């Protein structure tokens, strides 16, 4: 768990019907730690009985210590974290925010950066752009959105010949083959957005002979809701109920079971937990475990993954 700070919301600005920008500052206006492009923070939301912690990419200038900004898309089918941000948070609200962590940094060895964003996946690139501007490194950004009304990024992106918006309902779809062809040696690709976009980019890159080491991605993952299930802790024999809108990690935290975490999105690996016994099927929703590890069902990432079946016993 990262160090946390209590910050005050100073600006709440709707960017589109679904996406709102929030700005946080220290109540005493003291400087915040600066960060690097692609970093995220974890925001704590005391939502009734449940303490939610959602990770959001920082969209503000990494070198600006005066405040942190995030953009949150309201997910009506989600578990409630984004709804909480949209309905409960107003200027003056004090919130617990983690220090920034970065799992999606620019690769300093790259000679050129190709950034590919889908929908709300534009957010980490907004801080990348500031850093690339400072470093004066070559880049191009491709931003795909369904419609101009939904494209929150359009309000936040600078005008530039290197920034391309692909609006699908205007017939201007993103052509991955074209983007990935003819890029100079030393180009790295970064993709953030829905799973479908990430796998399309990774597949197209493989087809075009790109090495894996030049491909970077961050899924915009929050734990999916699902059917309630029960886990048993091997050491104490305790049984813990995980509700439909709760992640396993949140249920463990609510039961005051100590567990290490960082990204809460299945990417960093910090909350990896051993499974002592599994009679059923783990729904692995993370990007951390390998295909083989998933099949073995001997490890689970409680931040993202769920379970269906008769018994899941954790080595806790």
């Amino acid at each position, binding site marked *: 768990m990262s160090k946390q700070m209590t910050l005050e919301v100073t600006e709440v600005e709707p960017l589109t019907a679904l996406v709102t920008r929030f700005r946080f500052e220290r109540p005493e206006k003291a400087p915040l730690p600066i960060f690097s492009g692609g970093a995220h923070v974890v925001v704590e939301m005391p939502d009734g009985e449940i303490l939610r912690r959602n990770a959001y990419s920082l969209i503000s200038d990494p070198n600006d210590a005066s405040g942190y900004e995030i953009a949150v898309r309201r997910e009506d089918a989600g578990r409630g974290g984004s709804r909480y941000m949209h309905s409960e948070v107003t200027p003056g609200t004090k919130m617990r925010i983690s220090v920034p962590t970065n799992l999606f940094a620019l690769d300093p060895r790259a000679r050129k950066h190709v950034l590919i964003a889908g929908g709300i996946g534009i957010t980490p690139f907004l801080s990348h752009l500031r850093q690339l501007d400072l470093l004066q490194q070559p880049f191009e950004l491709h931003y795909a959105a369904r419609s101009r009304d939904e494209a929150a990024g359009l309000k936040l992106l600078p005008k530039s010949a290197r920034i391309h918006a692909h609006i699908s309902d205007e017939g201007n779809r993103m052509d991955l083959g074209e983007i990935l062809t003819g890029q100079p*040696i*030393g180009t790295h690709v970064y993709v953030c957005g829905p799973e479908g976009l990430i796998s399309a980019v990774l597949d197209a890159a493989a087809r075009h002979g790109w090495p894996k080491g*030049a491909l970077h991605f961050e899924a915009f993952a929050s734990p999916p809701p699902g059917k309630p299930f029960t886990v048993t802790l091997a050491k104490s024999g305790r049984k813990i109920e995980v509700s439909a809108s709760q992640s396993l990690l949140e249920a463990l935290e609510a039961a005051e079971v100590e567990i290490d975490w960082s990204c809460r999105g299945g990417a960093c690996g910090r909350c990896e937990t051993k499974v002592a016994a599994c009679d059923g099927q783990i729904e692995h929703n993370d990007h951390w475990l390998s295909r083989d590890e998933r099949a073995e069902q001997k490890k689970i990432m409680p931040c993202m993954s769920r379970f269906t079946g008769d018994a899941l016993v954790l080595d806790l």
Partner: protein
Amino acid sequence: MPNTSFSPSIESRPTYAGLVPQGSAPSIMIADAEGAEAILDLVDRDAAVLDQAHLIYIPKGAKFGSKLAELGAKGYHEEASLDAAMTLINRLLATAHMGTQLYLAGSEGMMGRISALALSLGLPLDAIQMEHRGSIGRPMQCVHCKGVTQDVTTDPFTCSHCGLTLFVRDHFSRRLGVFQAVCVDAETPGVIPETQEITA
């Protein structure tokens, strides 16, 4: 002779997985001496690798030139030395696009130098395929004078730049593409261990 398998050592000591054909993608193939045999084996497995290949060969006295020339790569270039080949290699790498495959085969000196160049251009290590063939002579950098002595086959050896007697280490610099060599008698001047042939 197959890909050399080196005995386990420290993590920085490179090992070479061997060349795997990547179809008819644009490619740059560089081989020296017996490395030619790795290219011949590669083509044997999938001749399509030649469709868009620039093949550069530095024979160093080996007799594979005519065989490689007959393969029918898109471009075949035989060069007298790696130094002489560098103008062409620099130009091919600098103008290459992502997706271009890089195949290196032969000595550690050549593979180290070209992979260091490719890494400096921003190509990730997993984009560079290498297969070791032939002499196990190593490129050794003297950590004292920074001069590089090529094709070192004994331990200790004499630095070809500053004349110090140097111990052959497995410590490899990816940035420079060379192994590191340190003075063997720094603390006991004149006490030099017996010279041995290095082994794989």
